């Protein structure tokens, strides 16, 4: 059964016109129960808006979605009781202690007080539970958010950048918590910039760019999609130039090992024939497994280029 399913989900901020922004553009994806699903995209790509629509804080402009099969308002309210989520930064009452903040969240979720202590213990905040939230470090705030998310022992956990502001040890702890939850059969929908963490933790990913899904599926599929090749020739410059001009090439990158070319189709014979036609004879050719980070950069290159242009003035 799908824990989440979206169909042409769209959000436009502002009325149509020059000032309106199409934040999410007809995205469709599905998250099966028990999956650890990574939701990736550069800043401003529409990740938080998408999550906002799922958790009911943002109204979709068009399209639809369902949670645990429910899509009507009443059914969604029931389904949302089965999820725990945090969006962007941890949102708590700064004047209240960590424990009191969890008391508010527990009252909203209809959870008893003993569960508060369990969750504080789980995230290692029992010692600081009586201190005011505003005195917490960012890492502690993130852990409190995770504790609040788990209060109702949700079946679906939505985490938006849970590792933001954490040191390597904190990131490792979050990863461990996610792994423990996944092993308990929880469905996890994880939005993160830490691609290595996502690759290690998630079974499936969806990559969003400028409001549109550009890749979606099992991590192995997305990473292996279309294939990539590691190429060497006597003249690396000429090789890079030629392979860049090859119609099936999506990206070319120089590495210490040689030229890595991501291709839409992994037809080796066509590539070698094309390069020979350009007067380039390969000394080495092998399949190359891109990392999730490399795939992400390839697929979101436009956004990265735009940032580089802005930076260079």
């Amino acid at each position, binding site marked *: 059964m799908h824990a989440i399913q979206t169909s042409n989900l769209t959000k436009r901020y502002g009325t149509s016109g020059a000032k309106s922004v199409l934040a999410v553009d007809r995205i469709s994806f599905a998250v099966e129960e028990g999956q650890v699903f990574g939701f990736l995209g550069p800043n401003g790509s529409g990740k938080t808006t998408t999550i906002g629509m799922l958790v009911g*804080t*943002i*109204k979709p402009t068009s399209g639809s979605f369902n949670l645990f099969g429910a899509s009507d308002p009443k059914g969604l309210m029931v389904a949302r009781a089965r999820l725990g989520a*945090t969006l962007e930064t941890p*949102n708590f*009452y700064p004047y209240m202690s960590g424990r009191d903040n969890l008391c508010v969240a527990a009252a*909203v979720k209809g959870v008893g007080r003993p569960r508060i202590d369990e969750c504080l213990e789980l995230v290692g905040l029992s010692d600081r539970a009586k201190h005011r939230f505003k005195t917490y470090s960012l890492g502690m705030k993130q852990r409190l958010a995770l504790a609040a998310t788990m209060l109702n022992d949700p079946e679906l956990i939505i985490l938006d950048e849970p590792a933001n502001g954490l040191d390597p040890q904190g990131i490792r702890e979050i990863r461990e918590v996610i792994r423990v939850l996944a092993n308990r059969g929880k469905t996890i929908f994880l939005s993160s910039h830490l691609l290595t963490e996502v690759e290690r933790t998630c079974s499936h990913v969806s990559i969003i760019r400028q409001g549109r899904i550009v890749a979606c599926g099992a991590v192995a599929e997305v990473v292996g999609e279309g294939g990539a090749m590691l190429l060497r020739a006597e003249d690396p410059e000429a090789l890079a130039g030629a392979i860049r001009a090859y119609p099936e090439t999506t990206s070319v990158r120089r590495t210490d090992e040689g030229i890595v070319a991501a291709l839409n189709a992994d037809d080796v014979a066509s590539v070698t024939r094309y390069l020979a036609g350009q007067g380039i004879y390969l000394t080495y050719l092998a399949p190359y497994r891109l990392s999730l980070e490399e795939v992400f950069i390839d697929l979101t290159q436009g956004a990265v280029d735009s940032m580089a242009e802005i930076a260079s003035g």
Partner: protein
Amino acid sequence: MMLGVLLRIEWLKAVKRRSFWVAVGAFAVFIAIPAVERIRNVHKNPNLSYALPESWPDILGAAAGLGPFFVGVLMILLVAPEFTWRTARQNVIDGLSKERFYVGKVMLLAGLISFFIAIAMLVGVGGTLFSPSEGGPGILRPTDLSYLGSLALSLLLVGSAGLMLSVLIRSSGLALGALFLYLIVEEAVGRLISQAGGGLRRSAEYLPSNILDQLGNDLAHYPEVLADVNSRRMERGLEPREFLDVEVLAIAALVYSALFLGLAFLSMCKRDL
């Protein structure tokens, strides 16, 4: 979700807030000062009296003076930061619908009104225990009940305006500024309309702050006191004071409150968090 649970959630948020207790304390002091003064005067001059039910106009009048503004400001201080801290959004993510979040705020308003009236009564009634005066028969007269109801409506009127501004503006500083700016502008507009005379002048009486002034004025609720005041004014050649009927004032206050609460509800439901 039961209303009691929503009230408990809002109460938990409010009582942990220092500004809540500062406002409650300031209000208690504000209404205690005239009561203490009255008691001191009674001790000095046995001809004066501070006892129930005769002193209800004094007790309720003190609360009606600044009480509505305390409730309005407190509503803004308690509701608007929910949007800047994004806790409103988190409450909705945690399982409150936007409608229930709004109902929680209405419950908070109802709680504040009850709490402020209870403080006014405790301070006022408690003060009479220290007074040597003896009151007339009974504790509450129908006119006292009318004044008490009007005090509740005054608190509701400004409290609902505070809730509306909080939900529309979503910033406590700007919402407070808007509340005070409105009061200044309304006073100026009301003065201009009053100078026009005729039917237009009558319409100025229905502006929210005029409704508030009349609801909180003891003369509107105690005809015998009003008659006494007016006879003295006439002796001095002044025009007699007039007030709208208490029923009309109550309906006007309810209509304004419903309008403010309705706008807040629409904004809460329509806008993204």
